[in-house]
């Protein structure tokens, strides 16, 4: 399993795994050899009384131990080289996949969470792979070679060694406790962590309402439940843990009783016995490695599993793309389009044409589907039925590049790269000349922003002392969109997040962006859309009304009601009388 993954994600370093295993084997061999020398040493001093003969054995013990340590270290180094590469490759793959992931993936997942999953789990893979290979080798080679040595010294000791090994493994297996427990334990931990995040995020509210951890019942319960579960799990392992410890530290004394059935020289037996007492400890290290291996395997598998699950989620609802690079015209057409977020159907059998070169405003209450419409036109989501066409071609026929060049989006939350203002704008069209970039900045009402900084357009966003308000950042993204010179402009609440005293400049910047293009806009400020060519009132994913402001204000229309409500909310005052009727219309 792990091997297959290694082959998939770090093929170029697969040899390092082999090197790691071979070196670990060599290290085990050296270690066992040092014990063999210890045995020789004991025979010399106890049985033979040949002290001079014991000296070379003592030197060899020391030399073999040094060699063992060095080789084991090399083995670790090889597997670390492999582990690091694996981590790097997984991270790179992560970046690549992130840039190709479907938009609905980003809707469903919080950015911090995505980053954390990739970050934490790639690190975990490297750690577990780096330690897994040498540990696994040690866990296997040391007992096998050790048994061989024990048999070589004395058959009875060999048998005892094997029995100890098997019984020890059995105890360890019992000691692992209930697997079901492990799952519940992880769940309890997750609930607790979620509670902690919630707690910290809402700390100001908790302060004001004088709530403590105890009164936040869910969190308090989660903390106690987690500890309780962990304790119960520990207690379920108690008996076998204790039995294992006592068994392991006493079992070698059994060899003492071999003495009574001996038929040899007592001193020779004593040498063997003492050797065994000193030797059998290596099994303990192997047992520990067995446990670590179990843990690392579990970690590596779950880490890679989590990353792969994330990658799969990125692929879900991914959009088919074609090869058409150019949009011949910017007529937009919905043909019988159906779309849903998960279970919830947002748009059903919608057909609609929006001829090019005009401006359209989508209005309606939140949840009516107007934002979804705008996103569908931008090619963010795959429709569940029907098709959307631009310039006579289905969206799926266009390449990513065609979307990037022909559609400019301005969203509510403007985001800039950590680069200079100039480069941020130039990202809209890399081939643009300096004059063009500066002209775009000018049209987007950014001159005043540039004037605030000594570095003007070379000011780096996010560097010290460079603070831009939401509305100012938005104007820079508008400059980028202007530079792009796309045929279709889609504005989704583009001025909603602006600071009020900047909103007017923002409006003017947007007006410049809209000039001469096909525009789809969603504006929270209903007063501002009166002059657009056509207004579409969206209700439950359908176009309820359509027409110019003048047309729609005649008669008892939904649009008229929306405008009136807007006016009333706008005219409201703290400590005011009932809001005045909307006469200004």
């Amino acid at each position: 399993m792990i091997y297959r993954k290694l082959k998939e994600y770090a093929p170029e370093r697969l040899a390092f795994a082999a090197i790691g295993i071979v070196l670990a084997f060599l290290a085990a061999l050296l270690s066992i050899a040092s014990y063999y020398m210890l045995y020789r040493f004991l025979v010399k001093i106890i049985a033979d009384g040949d002290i001079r003969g014991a000296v070379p054995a003592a030197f060899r013990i020391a030399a073999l131990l040094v060699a063992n340590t060095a080789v084991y270290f090399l083995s670790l180094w090889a597997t670390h080289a492999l582990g690091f590469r694996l981590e790097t490759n997984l991270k790179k793959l992560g970046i690549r996949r992130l840039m190709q992931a479907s938009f609905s993936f980003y809707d469903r997942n919080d950015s911090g969470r995505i980053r954390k999953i990739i970050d934490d789990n790639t690190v975990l893979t490297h750690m577990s792979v780096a330690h897994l290979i040498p540990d696994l080798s040690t866990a296997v080679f040391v007992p096998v070679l050790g048994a061989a040595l024990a048999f070589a010294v004395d058959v009875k000791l060999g048998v005892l060694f094997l029995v100890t090994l098997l019984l020890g493994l059995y105890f360890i297996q019992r000691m692992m406790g209930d697997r079901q427990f492990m799952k519940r334990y992880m769940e309890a931990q997750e609930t607790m962590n979620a509670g902690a995040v919630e707690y910290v995020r809402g700390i100001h509210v908790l302060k004001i309402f004088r709530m403590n951890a105890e009164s936040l019942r869910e969190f308090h319960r989660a903390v106690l439940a987690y500890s309780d579960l962990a304790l119960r799990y520990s207690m379920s392992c108690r008996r076998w843990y204790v039995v294992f410890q006592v068994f392991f530290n006493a079992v070698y004394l059994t060899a003492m009783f071999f003495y009574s059935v001996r038929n040899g020289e007592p001193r020779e037996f004593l040498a063997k016995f003492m050797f065994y007492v000193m030797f059998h400890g290596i099994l303990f290290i192997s047992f520990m490695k067995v446990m670590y291996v179990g843990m690392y395997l579990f970690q590596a598998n779950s880490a890679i599993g989590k990353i792969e699950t994330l990658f799969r989620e990125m692929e879900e609802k991914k959009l088919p793309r074609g090869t058409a690079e150019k949009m011949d015209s910017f007529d937009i057409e919905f043909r019988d389009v159906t779309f849903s977020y998960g279970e919830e159907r947002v748009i059903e059998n919608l057909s609609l044409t929006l001829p090019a070169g005009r401006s359209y405003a989508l209005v309606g209450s939140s949840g009516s589907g107007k934002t979804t419409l705008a996103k569908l036109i931008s090619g963010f989501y795959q429709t569940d039925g029907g098709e959307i066409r631009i310039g006579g071609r289905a969206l799926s026929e266009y390449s990513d590049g065609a979307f990037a060049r022909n559609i400019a989006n301005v969203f509510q939350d403007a985001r800039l790269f950590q680069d200079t203002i100039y480069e941020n704008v130039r990202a809209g069209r890399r081939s643009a000349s300096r004059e063009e970039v500066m002209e775009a900045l000018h049209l987007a009402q950014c001159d005043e922003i540039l004037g605030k900084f000594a570095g003007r357009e070379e000011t780096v966003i996010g560097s010290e002392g460079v603070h831009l308000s939401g509305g100012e950042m938005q104007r820079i993204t508008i400059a980028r969109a202007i530079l792009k010179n796309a045929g279709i402009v889609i504005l989704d609440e583009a001025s909603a997040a602006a600071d009020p005293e900047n909103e007017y400049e923002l409006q003017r910047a947007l007006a410049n962006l809209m000039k001469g293009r096909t525009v789809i806009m969603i504006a929270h400020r209903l007063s501002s859309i009166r002059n657009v060519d056509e207004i579409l009132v969206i209700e439950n994913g359908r176009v309820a009304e359509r027409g110019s402001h003048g047309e729609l204000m005649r008669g008892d229309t939904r649009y008229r009601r929306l405008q009136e409500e807007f006016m009333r909310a706008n005219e409201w005052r703290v400590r005011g009388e009932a809001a005045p009727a909307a006469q200004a219309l």
Partner: protein
Amino acid sequence: MRRFLKEKFGLTDRGVRAVELASVISFLVNFGYMLFMMIAMYFGDNVLRGEEKPAWVYLLLLAVTLLFVYCVVDLEYVRTYNATYREASDLRLEIADRLRELPLSYFSRHDLSDLAQTIMQDVSDIEHAMSHAMPRCIGYVFFLAAVGLLLLVSNPLLGLATVLPLLAGFLFMLFSKDMQKRWTGKYFWKSREMTEAFQETIELQREIRSCGIEEENYRRISDMMDGAEKLRLRAEITQGMPMLLSILFMKLTLGVISLVSAWLLGANRIQLIMVIGFLLASVRLVDAMGAMEESFAELLYLDARVKRLNELRETPTQTGRDTELGRFDIVLKDVRFGYEDGTRVVDGVSFTAGQNEVTAIVGPSGCGKSTLLRLISRLYDYGGGEIRIDGKDIREISTDSLFQKVSFVFQDVILFNASVLDNIRMGRADASDEEVKRAAEQAGCAEFIEKLPQGYDTLIGENGSRLSGGERQRISIARAFLKNAPILLLDEIAASLDVENEMRIQSALNQLIEGKTVVIVSHRMKSVENADRIVVMENGRVDAVGTHRELLESSALYRRLIEKSRMTEDFRY
């Protein structure tokens, strides 16, 4: 010893006592294991002297020792785990309560979700160390000292041969930590750079794609990662060196003893059984050390976690006396404040917000409006000047007494994953269900709550994810209705809501503010025209104070704000 444990491992008093006890038991466990070796020695001695003992002698010895060791190991297990998990939940709750008492400035210096996760993880690490590493290491160190002393006394030369390599191994382990620290520091920046690159790719993916610069972005990050990998491999080797030496020395113990004892035997300066005894003891010590290696490492690296925990404990909490407040005029005099040292967000602000009056604060974004509300509520402690309520400096009023009298409705509503009922009840913990429901009705929530699958008992998901923005805001207003505190602070509560929700909230609001000291921050100039007092702010200073009419006369800034808002309203695309 206790102080050392407490500081070094960040434990509570109860936890420290538990670790002490566990360490003693752990020492006994080590001693018990040694007893088995002693039986082997006894056997060896008999053989060497040619004295044969009947098997039952050994059996009896073995049986008694087994019983003793079984009991001690079992006791160690039960004691340790019971203490550990109680300590873990104690620590978590202690931290949670501690966090609540800190001024918000502590949180603005830390990434919120990271903070919560780290703390939970830190406690888990301490918990693990407590159940495994702490008692065993402490027990082992004392055991090593005791056995080492015994060995040194019985044969100084061989004793040194046993103790010195072990000690050297130990020292190198400590040294490896310094080494690791140095390299981790170097790597830390790289790793943070990469984390930021990831975050940027995720957050800006819309922009990256709409600009078609995917390849460029990939190449940049990919290069960065290759560089980081090289650095890390180098670091791994360098910082591995002391560790390598440490293991080497420990393992060498056996070799050194063999050599020294061969020499001593040759010179006839030692008895054979003594040599065997030393070999057995050193094997036991080295094996135990090997088994302990990870535990030692675990303790060495616990530092950073404990440091974070202790830092949290040492951050001063907000102090003050419990005070009964009678009147609720808020008087600000020359108030100064900055989120970081050296910056001034509020710079010498003075005004009075009277009881039963509405005071509005207006001004360009970043002028310090919202900050003022946080200062008045003592979410942050102001730096200079004074804020008085009922004539008393609020820094001398305990937060508990103050918060009792203050309601704060934030622009960003925070809801908890609990029932709707519990979420509103936060306003006043002892409110009856009926009172909660009445507050919900007053805030215009009743209608949508009744439509939820389980009505008031519906769990609303993490941070109320099942509710819309407008619904969330109405719940937070219901909290304020329920609390009915004499001071009401409103911070841009209707920003980013749609028209329908805004209207609902507006109609609830005029009822809510009745008879209270109200301070409202609003970006909509028109909505606060009727306020009793309007404070116009710019760059952390008060530009002017007055009624709408007065300000139209006296403040150019106010006129400009009004004009701007009129231009925005009249704008047509």
